């Protein structure tokens, strides 16, 4: 991982010095432990700020929308798939990008780590698969694989799909993981239980829209929830309005979501936001054999017509 970090710095320095890009989008250390923040580096002397570790879960493709300058961007597997989606949807031009691909080994879920200990965590350092958690006056260690973000634990596209250079050897992709275990569990419930399940899931939601803001797919200039003329959805805290927001947003991500987990990571109250989109991901895979952002050469199933598109639901 630290090897990655040096390679990223080297690449950023080279690109900025030779002037082939105007800025580099990457991560720098945040003010809290386990909270790296996205940063835009424009001068070679700022390159030292760049970091890479297991807390780079934010999806950087989110910062590319409609950018005009030449950009170098640090991209994990999921970021690269969202960059592909951006290019397909004409939100950025391929020529404008220099993609620094990072073969990913999964990001940690800071909530899982925090919930394991009652004390305040002062610092987290990592060495390969070992995490050292520092508290006031003591230190504990953890295995990274035990505290991975849920979507990283079941990820099968860790390597970037589109890149101009790589910062390390490609990693072996996971096989035999059940990506849809949660979806299957909900599918097995009765209608009433399903309703109740999402009612409970959404009960802490305060409608801060952090999930939407963190999502690289949500780039509409005016989101349907912010529109008031016409007003598409109620703006109150009523459970029906909250539910409508989440499910409508999920529909907008159908066939586009790469399951990067940015929404879930951004949620301040820890709602499993991926529960909405993963059902759609499963459907797009089963009905159209589609996984978002894997190639530039194919249009997404929802913007093309094929005579054999599944249409059993039309009576």
């Amino acid at each position, binding site marked *: 991982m630290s090897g990655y970090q040096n390679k990223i710095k080297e690449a950023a320095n080279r690109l900025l010095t030779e002037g082939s890009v105007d800025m580099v989008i990457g991560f720098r250390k945040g003010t809290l432990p386990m909270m790296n923040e996205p940063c835009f580096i424009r001068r070679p002397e700022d390159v030292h700020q760049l970091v890479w570790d297991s807390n780079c879960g934010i999806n950087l493709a989110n910062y590319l929308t409609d950018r005009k300058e030449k950009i170098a961007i640090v991209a994990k597997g999921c970021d690269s798939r969202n960059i592909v989606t951006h290019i397909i949807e004409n939100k950025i031009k391929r020529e404008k990008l220099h993609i620094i691909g990072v073969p990913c080994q999964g990001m940690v879920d800071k909530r899982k780590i925090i919930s394991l200990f009652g004390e305040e965590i002062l610092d987290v350092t990592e060495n390969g698969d070992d995490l050292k958690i520092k508290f006031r006056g003591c230190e504990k260690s953890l295995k990274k694989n035990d505290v991975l973000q849920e979507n990283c634990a079941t990820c099968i596209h860790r390597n970037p799909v589109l890149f101009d250079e790589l910062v390390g050897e490609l990693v072996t992709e996971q096989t035999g993981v059940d990506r849809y275990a949660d979806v299957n569990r909900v599918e097995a419930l009765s*209608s009433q239980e399903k309703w109740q399940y*999402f009612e409970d899931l959404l009960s802490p939601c305060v409608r801060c829209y952090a999930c939407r803001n963190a999502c690289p797919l949500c780039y509409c200039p005016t989101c349907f929830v912010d529109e008031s003329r016409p007003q598409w959805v109620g703006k109150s805290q009523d459970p029906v309005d909250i539910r409508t927001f989440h*499910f409508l947003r*999920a529909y907008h991500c159908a066939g586009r979501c790469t399951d990067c987990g940015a929404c879930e990571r951004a949620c301040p109250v820890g709602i499993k936001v991926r529960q909405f989109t993963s059902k759609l991901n499963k459907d797009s895979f089963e009905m159209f054999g589609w996984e978002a952002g894997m190639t530039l050469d194919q249009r997404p199933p929802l913007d093309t017509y094929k005579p054999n598109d599944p249409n059993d639901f039309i009576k």
Partner: protein
Amino acid sequence: MNLMEHMGIEPGRLQFSWISSAESTKFVDVVKTVTASVKALGPNTNYKKQAVKVA
């Protein structure tokens, strides 16, 4: 539609149909089956908003 049923809308409450303007008999049949199946499910109270709480 799959997601609607996934979140707890009962199967049969949401239906899709493709009817040409020339297919009057199909239209009648569809309306009959839809109303019958929705009547059998009863009113959808899930989507009823609670009264606004006034402090």
